[in-house]
């Protein structure tokens, strides 16, 4: 990505920041690689990497994507993180005017320092928003009693938590972990993953443009099919066959109160529901991630067309409480 001074209006645009956080070895770099290969054109994206004892992003991947990368060299010197990140952010914004800034925090980075850097006066008016994605090695959850403040701070900082490497746990433990983490972090979206496979919509989601991006009714299954394909890939790997996807399609409207109670009662193992819901007076687009539902008006076909993604759950058990909601 070359500096572009010719587009004056670009300098007015604000950048969205995605911070990828998590302890050493959790899979942050894997997620970064997925993010970097998830969109056809990444030329509007700058990557800031805070290395610390981990194998970093292959620079050739960035070259292929025409993406600029800045390495913070204070990976092991945590006290200078705030300074280095602040200076790097100012530099890349002034030079490249990126639409997106991806920050891979080091495994020992204090998330408070990252937030402090993003809140510096020198960045006022330059950033649109920030979302923190924390990657958790699911195997580390059972060790939580021996972790100090860093581990807790990284989890608490998460808007979206990837409970990664679930294939390395016995399936019954995954369910337990999921419930425990949900209980500990009730306001965080928690998604189990293998090799950080995740629906990219969850990462690049932009609330303010969601409505404008709504397309034909058949767009949704395409997106969700892609999600299913990802987990189809996982099935090739050992112990990875416990992700479940199934759909629910029904023309009859559902009672709104009943449906919302159904959503609230979904077990932690059902972490994603997406699609359209037909209520008696309107149809809405539902995006449900790990206990949190977002609703948007749906101008298309009035139909219930939902896809469910879960871990070791069954279609029958999940949908049974939904059926009484149908008119």
């Amino acid at each position, binding site marked *: 990505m070359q500096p572009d001074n010719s587009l004056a209006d670009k300098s007015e645009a604000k950048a969205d920041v995605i911070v990828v956080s998590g*302890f*050493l*070895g959790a899979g942050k770099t894997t997620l970064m690689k997925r993010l970097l290969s998830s969109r056809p054109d990444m030329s509007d994206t700058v990557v800031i990497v805070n*290395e*610390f*004892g981990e194998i970093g992003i292959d620079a050739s991947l960035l070259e292929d994507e025409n993406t600029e990368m800045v390495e913070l*060299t*204070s*990976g*092991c*010197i*945590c*006290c*200078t993180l*705030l*300074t*280095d990140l*602040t*200076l790097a952010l100012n530099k890349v914004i002034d030079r490249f005017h990126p639409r997106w800034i991806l920050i891979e925090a080091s*495994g*020992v980075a*204090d998330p408070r320092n990252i937030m*402090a850097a993003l809140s*510096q006066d*020198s960045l006022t008016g330059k950033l649109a928003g920030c979302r923190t994605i924390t990657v958790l090695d699911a195997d580390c959850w059972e*060790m939580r*009693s*021996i*972790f*100090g*403040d*860093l581990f807790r701070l990284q989890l608490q900082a998460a808007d979206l938590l990837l409970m990664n490497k679930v294939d390395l746990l016995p399936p019954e433990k995954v369910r337990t972990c999921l419930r425990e983490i949900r209980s500990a972090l009730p306001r965080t979206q928690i998604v189990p993953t293998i090799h950080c496979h995740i629906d990219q919509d969850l990462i690049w989601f932009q609330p303010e443009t969601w409505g404008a991006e709504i397309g034909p009714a058949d767009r949704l299954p395409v997106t969700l099919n892609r999600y299913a394909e990802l987990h189809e890939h996982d099935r090739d790997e050992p112990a990875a066959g416990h992700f479940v996807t199934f759909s629910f399609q029904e023309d009859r409207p559902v009672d709104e109160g009943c449906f919302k109670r159904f959503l609230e009662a979904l077990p932690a193992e059902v972490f994603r529901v997406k699609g359209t819901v037909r209520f008696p007076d309107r149809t809405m687009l539902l995006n449900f991630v790990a206990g949190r539902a977002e609703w948007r008006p749906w101008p298309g076909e009035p139909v219930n067309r939902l896809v469910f993604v879960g871990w070791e759950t069954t279609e029958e058990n999940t949908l049974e409480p939904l059926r009484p909601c149908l008119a």
Partner: protein
Amino acid sequence: MPQETMTKMERMEAAIKLEPLDRIPCAPLMDVYFPAKYKGFSPARAVKDWKAGFGAIVDVFDEVGGWDGMILPGYSYALTPNLYAGITVGKNLIPGLDLNGETTLQFDEKEVLTRDDYDDIINLGWNGFRLKHKDRFNPADEEAIIKWTRSQMNKYKYELQTWRDRGLRSLCGTITQSPLMFLSTTRTLLEITKDIYRIPDKLEAVMEAMLDDLIQEAVESAKMSGEPGVMLVMERGGCFYYPLHIYERFEYPHMKKMVEAFAAEGLITVMHLDQDYTKNAPYFLDLPAKMVVAELDGSTDIFKAKEILKGHICIAGDVPAALLSLGTPEEVEAYCRKLIDVVGEGGGFILSTGCTCPVECKMENFRVMIDTAKNYYPH
């Protein structure tokens, strides 16, 4: 401006011994990168050309009219002329060699020790282990290794003498780490944490087996360098990384033995406490009084630490790196005054940088920190 009635050395000594002061002493923790940048040459050159790099530190000292003490004298190592002393386990990434020439040195945190090494450490001790596995960690011939340790010690002594010639001393005649810190950086933070969880008894035995050698080497090297102090680096043991029940088992007992052993030899321990140690501070009350400096980096609540440790040990710190780099001189002065007001009350305080003076430090901010110590003393 307070009237100065003490020499630099007397002032530093009085601060450590919690005795009355004419003003608060200032002793920044300086490595080469900020001075080198200020003097206009690259980190790569600073590392490669020791005379130029150390000269840059001295130039900065002279340019700001000096300060009261050094935490470390420069950036050499006080190594004993023993083969094991030159067998370093773990690697630094060097600007101009492993990194681009414009970046600062980084520790390369890789799993250079494995669980399979633990039995050897338990059976042979730390020095015996290093000798047995010499070629794995340092394949150079023995003569070359010992020659290198001697040259490092000579540089260290030169640095110390340079400061003595300017009327000040370095607090540390050598540097070492706690067993947890050593193992955390050579096993990696993640793997050592798994060891704590899965094989705690064995890990504890490894730490115990390392202890005598670590103590003996630090004492010997401090005595050789001629400066009665040891920097004990302990970034990885505090509450930021581990809860207190882990600290009580895997860090505190070993560091306490080290501090007590150093004190028995008349050596001051400078505990280099990177990251947050606020919850750990009460444990320091069991360390030998007036023989320890708790050097804080801005992450620990230094005001709380003062409440806890007042009258027992000296505190040094903690002008944060971000303040020195991003702040204004007015902000730096205000923070230094607050430190002198609160942490300096009753003595036992050395105004210092929070960890190493950062490479991006603004010279005007650095100067203000030094000047505030010289010009402001309300007590």
